[in-house]
């Protein structure tokens, strides 16, 4: 097994990407970011992504569509997806699309980190 878990951050807002990456970096995770679906898919196909954190609202596409597609694809369905959004009713939409969990914007850092570590721990257990 590799040393560090790789987390992919997908958000069309570069500010959010940079921020989350910085936080993840601080907590010792490897993080990559993508500003659109195409880049995200490239990263997923060429790296072992342990967790995907993504915004529900993306340019041009609906984040829940991406989530649904990833969850339906056998190759990617095991990647936990943590979605976030500021939309007041986004939670149900995201969970219904197959997201493993949801955090609403603005999120509490500890909340997010808890969820991240939960998923990564769960990955390990599953792998074992």
């Amino acid at each position, binding site marked *: 097994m590799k040393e560090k878990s790789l987390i992919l951050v997908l958000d*069309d*807002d570069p*500010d*959010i990407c*940079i*921020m*989350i990456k*910085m*936080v993840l970096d*601080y907590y010792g995770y490897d993080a990559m970011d993508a*500003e*659109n679906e195409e880049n995200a898919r490239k990263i997923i196909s060429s790296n072992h992504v342990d967790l995907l954190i993504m915004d529900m*609202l993306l*340019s*041009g596409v609906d984040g829940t569509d991406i989530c649904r597609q990833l969850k339906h694809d056998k190759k990617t369905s095991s990647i936990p997806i943590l979605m*976030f*959004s*500021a*939309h*007041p*009713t986004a*939670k*149900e939409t995201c*969970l*219904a699309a197959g997201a493993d969990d949801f955090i609403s*914007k*603005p*999120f*509490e*850092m*500890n909340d997010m980190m*808890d969820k991240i570590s*939960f998923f990564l*721990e*769960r990955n*390990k*257990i599953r792998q*074992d």
Partner: protein
Amino acid sequence: MVNFPELSDQKTTSLDFLSGGGEMGERIRNFDWSKTSLGDPKHWQNSLKTCVRIILTSPQPMFVWWGKEYINIYNNAYQFILGEKHPALGASGNIVWKEIWNEVGARADIVFNKNEGTYDDALLLIMNRYGYDEETYFKFSYNPIPGDNGGTAGLFCVCTEETERIINERYLKTLQELDTLAQKESEQAIYEQAARSIESNNKDFPFGIIYKINETKKIAGPVVFIGINNEQSVFPSHIDLNVPVEGTHNFYEAYQTREIVVSENAGRRKKLPMGAWQKEATQFVHVPIFIAGHNSPIAILSAALNPFRKFDNSYRQLANLVADRIALEISKVISLEQEKNARKKIEESEKVSRLFIEHAPAAMAMFDTEMRYVSVSRKWMKEYDLTGNVIGKSHYDLFPNILGRWKQVHSRCMKGAVEKSDEDYYEKDDGSPVWLKWKVRPWYTTTGEIGGIVIFTENITQRKKAQLAIKESEERFRTMANEAPLFVWETDENLQTTFLNRSGLDHFDLDETIKMNEISWKKFIHPDDLEYVLSVMDDAAKKHHSYTLEMRLKNGRTGEYHWFLDKGTPRYADERFTGFIGTSLDINDRKQTERELENKVIQRTRELNQQNIILKQQNNLVKKILDSSVDLIAVYDTDARIISINQSALSAMKTKEEQVMGKKLLEVLPQMKDTQGHKDLLRAIDGETIHNEIYYSPVLNRYYENSLVPLKDHDDKIYAVLVMAHDNTDLITSSQKLKEAQQIAQIGHWDWDVSTNRLSWSDNMYNIYGVDPSKSIDYDKFISLVHPDDRANMQANIEFAFQSRSYNDFFHRIITPAGEIKIMYARGEVVVDKEGNVTRMMGTGQDVTKQKLLEQQLIETSKKFEERNRFIEKLISSSLDLIMVVDKDLRFITINKKAETVLGKVYKGPIIGEKVTDIDPSMIGTQTYQDLLDAFKGNIIIRDKVRSTMGGEQYYEHNYVPLFNEEAEVYAVMIISHDITENIRQMEELRKLSESDVQKNNFIAMASHELKTPITSIKGYVQLLLNAFDKDKEKHLPPLLVRSSLISVDKQITRLTRLISELLDLTKIETGTLELKKEEFSLNALAIETVEDILYTNTKHEINLFHDFQSYVFADKDRIGQVMINFLTNAIKYSPNSNKIDVWIRQTKNGQVAFTVKDYGIGIDKEEQEKIFERFYRAKGKEEQTYPGFGIGLFIAKEFVEKHGGQVLVKSEKGKGSSFTFNLPIFK
């Protein structure tokens, strides 16, 4: 018996040789020898005396046979040989031993005749000493006794009985024979050898069979035959051991008792093998053969017994010894075999265990007593990092640091202990933690000694770690679950709750200490939902997929039901369903909103439906109008199918609407084929307008006046034919009858001679009056026949005729003698003489009864028409629709009340007679006007949703119906206008409502996103800094981290501020509270300032500012600056692949100043250019990203500029860039 005293007397004197000798001495002395050929012993020959003396003094059995009679004299020792033959003193030897005389007599002959002695070492003699024939053996010698006179006078025998010795020797020999069994290695071989051994003693066992017992089958069968072959059926070949039968009782007894059983043949079995004898056995013996550890015999030896022996103890012992010997050997073989098997097994298992160990998936190793590896599994090698060949090496040498307690375990197990541990912890040399599960046990060599130990270990570190992790995650899950606002729950496979988080417990008002299995969650589900929920869960569990459903759950405290979004995922262990894990989220508010919206829609729909019903009702009214028409009206399509028909037509055809609708005319009335009516219809379909003044329908037998009018659509194409028919049958038949009546008019002549008062009638008159012509008629009689009511009139008319000399025609009624009332038309002439006196009157009387009646009928029919017409008019006037009839000059002929009211709003004064275009001049050239003109061409036109400005904005559905005159020309058009304003208004309202809802929702979603995104960023950085600070309190924070965080935060705050001010501006614009703080300033200076600001934060783009014109403006400087920023930031945003932006300030042709920003970016579509100034519009598309912002920047900019009296313009070409310009008035 003998007389002893006598004998003793003799003895004392001359019979010394007879002294002693015990009982036999006594008997010899007392025997009366005189009765024998020997005579008095005193006179016996000396040799005899000597011999007798010898026998009497010898303990050795001896006898003397004297003389040719073999007189028998024997000693004490010999009496035992004689057995029951004793006493046989003085008897002849050949009589005493008659059964063996064959043998011994021959020998005696030799002695007597040849004077030689005989000697036999162990002669078999079958004696009968004890009442049976007995096998005996003797060692004896016969010696001649010389008589005193020479020759052989007697026989002297010294003998020893060897029976016991011989038989014992034989027994011994048999047993010795059985020693050979020891060489045999199989059961069968032993039995066979035993058979041969026993066969060798065919005296004691003339024949026999060894039966082997099959205990499981409870059956015995021969295993070997002794002295007999298997073809001889002496004994049964198979013996059922469950129950004895005839002939097996003894065998069965032996089997049961495990004792020897002897049985008599008793003649049952014949022709038995006799073995060594010439006689069949009389007894059989069944000897059980049993070995230790078995409850029943393993075999039974059934054998014939020696016919010349009693089955005495020694014989019995022999049998037992034989059986024991066989049993011993058999048991030896069995145990040998067992041992062999055991050894083989041990060897095999050793081999297997070695192999097993080597290849075992577990870490295993086998050690000898010195802890040297005997065998080791690959896994062990891997687990303990061993390489190469370790067999033979000491474990302790390989692991010098091995734990002491483990060494102790090893040594205990070397002594036979078995020890294990399910979880043992130690740290490897490199310090990494290892959890082990192990078991140590000794292993045994084939000799049963401990050969060493086997160690089994399983590294459970991963599992342990996983367990810890699971435990930890479980705890974390529970903590999270408990914190979650939604219910988190788990169930077992029976859907029994196993976990419910705090929110759930709170909702159901359950104590946290409640046991999960006591929660019957089903009772919290709304009863109407329960079945559904269970079926969904069941389905999900079966199909291995998650489910999402909505259901109502009861609040434990209030008892209210709330809607919940329930999600569950089934879980499985080894494909077995183990329960669900899921969440339930209170969505009551959402559901409530949904329901309200739904209700709203339902309400609207209902209202609309009502409107539609009204509309329908009103349409029905038109139909009613048509229906109430007495005329027959039907509309046919071009296939001559009836597509519309009114009641009159239906009743004329005596049918119902549903039976004719959609059917062809000939299908309904086949008899119309080739009639004029059908032909007319086909002609009309071809485009001809037909009018028949009188059309007779032979089918209906009615007269009609009818019109057939083709109906054309806007393309002048015929789509239907309108057939209208007015039933004239009554009229036509009435007038025809009148004619007929006139033709056959009943007219009579009368002549009245006034002077004579004689009245004469023609025959017709008599006929009409129903009076017998043979009877004379006079004036009085005539008057009496006149209807009493008309008599006065009659007389007045006659009076008048007298005075005026003229006769007026008049009608009167008569009553015939038969009582029939008739109406008469009377005409006459007055005849005057020269003096002017009336002399006679003559005239005609005509029966006009029928004619009058017809006339009456006609009047009544027309009255009915009138009534009906009045009804229709009433209907028309009371209609809610506007009904107007317009003539060819477009003047109103008639209008109903509703129309009057509506038109009255725009036109004062009477409407009837006025031209349509006078009342509404604006209608010329409109669709309405055109439709009206088209209707005059004979087309029925229906026009939906016509907007009318007459009396406020109204929407109508106009129906134009051409009215035809008799010449089939359109003389007027009826317009029926139905007011649909309310429908349209409500539909519009509903549309707007949903549109604004959508817009509002979109805006909320966007605003949330846009506002929360910078907040998220800020929060992220701040919390990161806080965390970093908490963690490294003592240390300095990495300055790079702090700086980049703060820069980002600053940027986000700027973004947030801009968004908020945009929102504020929007609010102001929307509420109309935007105020401008106008001042005089230089647009050029503001432009420079703004561009500098932009360049401060944006380093990518180069901005060229061209001041073609210097201008001052009087405006709100901040707002104009905002517009400039908006233009510039847009230019930057939408030109990500270019780095140049040009800005101009120029003068426009109409004397204003223009500020233009040109970029070389993505550009805007023509279609989109109109939309970009709309509120909330944002560039969208596949290529472009959606850019952050509310999408109200340009909207605000435009509002600002327009508020200043300026304009905003855009020029753009897709892919080449855009230029935005605003113009402002120049301040001079």
